[in-house]
């Protein structure tokens, strides 16, 4: 089974949960920018969240199945049609052989995900299928590519209410080892500042802007290069923050003011350009509670899947349906 790519946006990559274990070799984890979307897709298709999916940054593409294929759509909602008819996002659908799935621009958020039953069976490199564009591990998906799909059976026509995370908002952060390089006044101002996502963003990191002065650290230019983790909020030379994402560098000399909790990274990565972000420092105990709640929610997702009821307004040939045939008795 396979999906043929007829059209594709400029930054669509195959992603799974990433490639930990190579930090000491300078290779960051990569993996889906919105990990929650991977779990949602897995719940909709009744499969493992370790399956690889297609991550579509801002714009999707046009896809054709060679054989009947189950798909699910999660993450940033995007315009989507199946053979010209609109189908709902956050749902699973059956794609018959030869049918065309057309995914357009994101309506909210940044990263949409196309999942297939059985997962995308691309080459495993260093233990993962995740593309890492900056490291040139894998490459962006191109027109003419054929995505091989794993063995599969199961249901479609299911939906899942997504956790809201596509328009910015509050990100919880913890102090990290360089937080004390910033004085209390700067830290306080940082926590009070309304930021908005700037235009510079990719899978390495996203720029934030704000009114007023930048956020400088003491002795900023003399800091020894030190370890970086995804979620770190790095201050550049001008004191503008960048939130670092799955393809970030593994070490760096710019100081990090704080680290976004893993459970808030889907919201961070999905914040569209111009949307507002605020940061709130929490203690490690509060962070543990927030992260545990998120992990518990991931585990509950498969139980939250519901049948998709077709909206009669979206059935173009409604009048051709035999709507009462087969009904023998109202009391059956």
């Amino acid at each position: 089974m396979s999906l043929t790519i007829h059209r594709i946006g400029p930054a669509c990559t195959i992603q799974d949960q990433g490639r930990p274990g190579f930090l000491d070799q300078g290779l960051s984890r990569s993996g889906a920018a919105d990990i929650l979307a991977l779990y949602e897709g897995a719940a909709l298709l009744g499969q493992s969240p370790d399956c690889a999916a297609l991550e579509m940054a801002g714009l999707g593409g046009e896809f054709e199945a060679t054989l009947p294929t189950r798909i699910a759509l999660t993450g940033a909602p995007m315009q989507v049609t199946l053979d010209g008819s609109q189908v709902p996002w956050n749902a699973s659908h059956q794609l018959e052989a030869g049918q065309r799935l057309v995914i357009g621009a994101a309506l909210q958020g940044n990263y949409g995900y196309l999942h297939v039953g059985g997962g995308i069976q691309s080459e495993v490199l260093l233990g993962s299928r995740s593309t890492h564009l900056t490291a040139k591990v894998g490459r962006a998906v191109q027109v003419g590519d054929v995505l091989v799909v794993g063995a599969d059976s199961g249901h479609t026509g299911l939906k899942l209410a997504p956790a809201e995370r596509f328009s910015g908002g509050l990100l919880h952060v913890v102090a990290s080892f360089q937080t004390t390089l910033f004085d209390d006044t700067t830290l306080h101002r940082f926590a009070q500042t309304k930021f908005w996502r700037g235009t510079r963003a990719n899978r390495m990191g996203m720029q934030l802007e704000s009114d007023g002065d930048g956020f400088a650290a003491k002795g900023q230019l003399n800091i020894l290069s030190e370890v970086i983790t995804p979620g770190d909020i790095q201050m550049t030379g001008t004191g503008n923050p960048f939130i670092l994402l799955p393809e970030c560098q593994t070490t760096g000399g710019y100081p990090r003011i704080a680290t976004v909790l893993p459970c808030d990274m889907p919201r961070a990565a999905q914040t569209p350009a111009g949307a507002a972000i605020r940061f709130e420092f929490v203690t490690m105990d509060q962070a543990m509670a927030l992260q545990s709640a998120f992990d518990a929610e991931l585990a509950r997702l498969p139980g939250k899947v519901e049948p998709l009821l077709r909206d009669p307004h979206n059935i173009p040939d409604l009048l051709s349906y035999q709507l009462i045939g087969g009904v023998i008795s109202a009391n059956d």
Partner: protein
Amino acid sequence: MTVADTFPLVRTVGFDGALVTFANTMTEDANRAALAFRAEIEQLRWDGVTETSATLGSAYIRFDPQHLTHAGIRLRLQRLLEQQNWYSTPLPEGRRLWRVPTVYGTDLAPQLKEAAAAAGLDPEDAIQRLSTTRVRVLTIGFAPGQPYLGPLGPEFDIPRLQDLTPMVPEGALVLAISQFVLFSGPTPTGWRHVGQTAFRCFRPEMEQSFVLRPGDEMIFEPVSPDQLDQIRANNTDGTGGATCEEITA
């Protein structure tokens, strides 16, 4: 430095990490300590530790906070620190010496002259010194397989540039603060581009994707642009004409 900053120092990294720092400036002893301490953590295979790395002067430990608490891992790390003098540990075993053909200066490495001037040397003298200094892989980081190399002589303790050079190519040898970095991919940088090699530090398509290890040593031997062209014409293995021998001493 305040009293609280005495080394080694154990600190938290974000939500799920700990950092053991042996010095806040680059020193030989701290670098060896970081490498040895990280190697020991790998050996111990503590349940709940997911990943470790060594930087110039620190060892980083990422763990699952559902299995290991921050307080718990801090205690373990402090006990391990007390077990020996990590600053006097030997370098890793199995180190190798790499000799890498390098074009210094020319339009392939256009900041050699400027780096020489910053070091108070004429270009020939700078090339002579740089090409005969045996540097060590201090850490691998920033980008895959990419080594930080040193130390170079104190005359090369020159600052990073204020303005970034928009892009230097893969295989570029760049210099600042008495260190080289050999770039594993095209990247913007504030370090000065003094040499160009055809050596690929990261070869994802090969079984041995990562070529260099901390503790390895390198010499960047001068060749002409024509010689580098010839090397590039026959570089399917990515070695860029480099040779490699075991360090036995």
